[in-house]
């Protein structure tokens, strides 16, 4: 036990861990030349054991064998650093005061924690927050809140730790940042929202999660939608028996990325020979698995799923289908809309392989919707260079009495219902907007820890520099 404590007590361990993280980050950067950012994140940073591909360190023209090196992943290094940090501080930074000073220090510490919590939970912030002016004051205010918390905590540290106050505070800030990022890695959800001018939309598309949706429209009052989540679609070879559908679904293959649909006529014979006999779009279009897109170019993967339907009672095949995200209008910025129509027992099912759809709700549980009035795309005169993108929207939540005209533009998002709506893209001919919708409840932590570390570090360095210069004169 003692040896374990001593192991974690060593600053050499800190140096080793930090060096390992350098290597990991470097490899993770190089890997993005040919891999998607999300894959790299899972393979290198958001894991306990990273798999570093050997070939990332060499020019891509060289023929490097496809080997990977096991390496401590981001989570592992992060947690070891956290333990190391806490142990070192526990052992060498003891509370240095007694009596009244100690009590005052503890009081300030408690106060600091309350202020920090208040900042995270957004006390005193308007429920619908969008800006019409520049980012300046908004961000300044947030950093100001962070500074307030940092100063209170610094006072507490001075009372408790005297000269080592800055050290303790800055490492506390780092710890806070690491924990916050860990929470973000686990909890943050990214989605998009595509709205044509004049259209009202009440759902978002989760960027990292797919689903297969069967929509049956025969009832005059409502549609019946059956959704199969991504985790079921990834079980290759299994047969699903979804309730509410008269057929079973066999998963032949789930493709992380697939090529843009091409007419089968243009595809060489030997490739077509291996192409399954599909019903629907697959009967005339060629869609097949393709390697992942590179994170560097900012492209997105287009997953597809290869399924076969079976009649539940007789067990006969109802045809094999390729269902691709390429057929989903919001993926192709509404360039086309290609639902696969499947008719079984006289009922027609409109089928989409699409982003996981979440209907918008405010924290009180009331649904809300967004209407796009106008999308503005300004360019610099005499160039094709974008100057400004802006969406003029109408936000309505009847249950919460929210009815607001708002503007979402570059660098100026809307914050509402614990989500943030950012201007992110647009539809062809500027006919509509694409908003990035992010939910991240720990988003204020970086603001706080930035200021905490800044205050701690600045205090420490100025203190020691001053000491040196005074001694030197």
């Amino acid at each position: 036990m003692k040896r374990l404590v001593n192991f974690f007590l060593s600053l050499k361990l800190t140096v080793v861990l930090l060096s390992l993280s350098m290597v990991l980050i470097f490899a993770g950067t190089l890997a993005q030349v040919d891999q998607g950012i999300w894959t790299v994140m899972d393979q290198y940073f958001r894991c306990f054991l990273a798999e570093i591909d050997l070939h990332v360190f060499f020019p891509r023209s060289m023929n490097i064998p496809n080997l990977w090196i096991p390496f401590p992943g981001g989570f592992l290094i992060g947690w070891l650093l956290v333990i190391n940090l806490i142990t070192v501080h526990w052992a060498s930074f003891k509370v240095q005061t007694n009596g009244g000073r100690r009590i005052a220090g503890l009081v300030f510490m408690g106060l600091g924690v309350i202020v920090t919590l208040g900042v995270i939970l957004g006390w005193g912030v308007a429920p619908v927050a969008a800006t019409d002016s520049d980012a300046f004051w908004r961000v300044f205010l947030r950093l100001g809140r962070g500074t307030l918390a940092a100063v209170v905590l610094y006072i507490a540290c001075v009372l408790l730790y005297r000269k080592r106050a800055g050290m303790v505070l800055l490492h506390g800030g780092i710890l806070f940042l690491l924990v916050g990022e860990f929470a973000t890695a686990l909890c943050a959800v990214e989605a998009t929202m595509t709205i044509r001018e004049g259209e009202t939309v009440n759902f978002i598309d989760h960027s990292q999660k797919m689903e297969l949706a069967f929509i049956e429209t025969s009832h005059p009052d409502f549609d019946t939608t059956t959704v199969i989540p991504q985790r079921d679609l990834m079980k290759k070879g299994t047969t699903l028996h979804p309730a509410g559908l008269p057929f079973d679904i066999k998963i032949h293959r789930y493709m992380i990325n697939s090529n843009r649909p091409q007419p089968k006529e243009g595809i060489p014979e030997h490739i077509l020979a291996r192409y399954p006999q599909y019903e629907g779009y697959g009967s005339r279009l060629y869609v097949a698995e393709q390697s992942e897109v590179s994170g560097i170019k900012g492209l997105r993967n287009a997953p597809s799923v290869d399924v076969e339907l079976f009649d539940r009672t007789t067990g006969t095949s109802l045809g094999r289908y390729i269902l691709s995200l390429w057929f989903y209008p919001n993926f192709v910025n509404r360039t086309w809309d290609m639902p696969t129509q499947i008719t079984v027992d006289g009922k027609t099912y409109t089928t989409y392989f699409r982003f996981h759809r979440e209907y918008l709700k405010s924290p009180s549980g009331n649904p809300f919707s967004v209407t796009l009035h106008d999308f503005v795309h300004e360019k610099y005169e005499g160039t094709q260079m974008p100057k400004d993108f802006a969406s003029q929207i109408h936000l309505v939540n009847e249950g919460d009495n929210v009815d607001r005209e708002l503007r979402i533009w570059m660098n100026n998002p809307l914050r509402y219902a614990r989500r943030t709506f950012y201007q992110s893209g647009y539809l062809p001919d500027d006919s509509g907007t694409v908003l990035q919708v992010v939910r991240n409840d720990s988003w204020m932590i970086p603001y706080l820890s930035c200021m905490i570390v800044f205050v701690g570090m600045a205090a420490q360095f100025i203190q020691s520099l001053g000491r040196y210069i005074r001694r030197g004169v």
Partner: protein
Amino acid sequence: MRRSLINLLVIGFALWFFQSGVKPPMEAPSDFQLNAFGHLPVKFGGRKKPVDTFARNLLTVLSDKQTVRLDGEKVSAVQWLLDSICGRPAALDYPVFRIENLDVLSSLGLEERPRFRYTYRDLLPHLGTLDTAARSAFGKEDRQRDLYDKQIMKVANKIYLFQNVLSAFEDPSGIPEEQLIATAQRYMQLENYSIPLIIPPNSGNPRWRPLMSSLLATHPELEQMMGNHKIVADPLAQHMAAMLTAYREGDATRFNDELMDYGRRLQSDNPATFEKLSFEVFYNRLGAFMKSAQLYLIVFMLSLFGWLFRKERLVDAARTLMIFAFIPHTLAIVARVFLSGYPPVTNLYSSAIFIGWAAVGAGIVIELTFRKKAAGMGNLAGSIAGFLTLLVAHFLAGDGDTMEQMRAVLDTRFWLTTHVITITLGYMATFVAGIVAVFYIFAGVLTRRLDEETGENLYRMMYSTICFALLLSFVGTVLGGLWADDSWGRFWGWDPKENGALMIVIWNAILLHAKYGKSIARRGFALMSVGGGIVTAWSWFGVNQLSVGLHSYGFTQSASFWLMVFVLSQFAIIMLGLVPQRFWKSGRV
């Protein structure tokens, strides 16, 4: 007494050095008033600028120089531009197209030349070949393009740009009727590209317009076609057209008259277009950055000598010179902020200028904080960093306007000011520590200058610089994350540029923890500080070579080469420092 005399002399020298070349060459009233023409406004790349700037930038893109050298004589950019757009035959013979790739040259059937610069006449017979090769290169996906393709595209882009500029100044009044529709279509297409808009907004027309389209509206045939809808000719366009004709015909009097009329008319119609123009011409003429760079080099030489042989007076004089080269450097950055309306760092070019500026500033601060103990080390580190970064900036300027407009995503003054400046200061501090470390190693291994006291002082200098580097790079990196969070909802995305910045933070943290944990002493600290320079170079330039997302605001091919040279040289210095200390000339310190 003697000291202040020397200082006065140094200041006088600096002032004389900066004023040279600012005054335009004398023009007799009967000559073409090229200087005045250079002051006219033009909008290109979304920014209003004087013709002088436009001509210089265009020439820089084509030939990497701001003047043309013709038979040993220097021709100003404005004159070259006028000759070209007026269609004077002489324009064909300016050697302005720089093509340095041998494969491209041989595929175009051109001979290799000492300065790699070719005239339009040289290129004319090969334009078809070039176009075909370029089309096939443009058609490929980026990954499939080889070096030849990229070079062909570069050359072709130069030619297309030049041709588009020529077209933008065409006078369509002589075009026969049957070609009118085709010409109109061609002009409409051209307006989708980046072309110079020379006709400012005026009472007749609210937008900036290129000359050829403004003139086309008044084509006699077109007027007939429009029948009753009489189009009012834009008087500014007509003056401009007359000016260009006069220039082509060599009629200086008429050129000057038309120029005066044009200027007077614009002055009364839309005086705001002249704002800032003469200041920008002055800024161009001053060329403060190149001059500061030259002075920094002198400072470096003087200080090196003074430091090695402990000549205090020399170090003092060098410090004064550095301060007086630093002042114009500062003012020129302020001028850029004033002219562009953006914070000081917006692209790779301005980051280089700013890092150089901050490094010199840091050198001055080191000199003033450590006083006698610095013994000129602040001069040395500051001046060499200032010189090298300004040199880098000079080579980066080849992309054209260095005060270009910002893409929508990046256009927020707040973040540009806070994040970008803090992070660049972090780069700067890491670099400065690295440079001091390089001196530590060189002085230790090669000279006897590194005694116990000097070693301790240099160590202190490196240590405090690294402390500030850590502080600045940490805050800068986190602010960058906050910008990302504020703009597109992702505090940390493991984007290559973010990773680069993070690596600097971690490297500095490793240094400090290794020091606190007593894993390294002075020499180790110096060696690792040199490593800090490598990490910074990777983050500043290397990451861009991966051609990446939003952050990759600068991509240049020769940059990869120089980056490799820098990294290898730094590794060599680390190796040198690893030589056991008993072999060091200064011995064990």
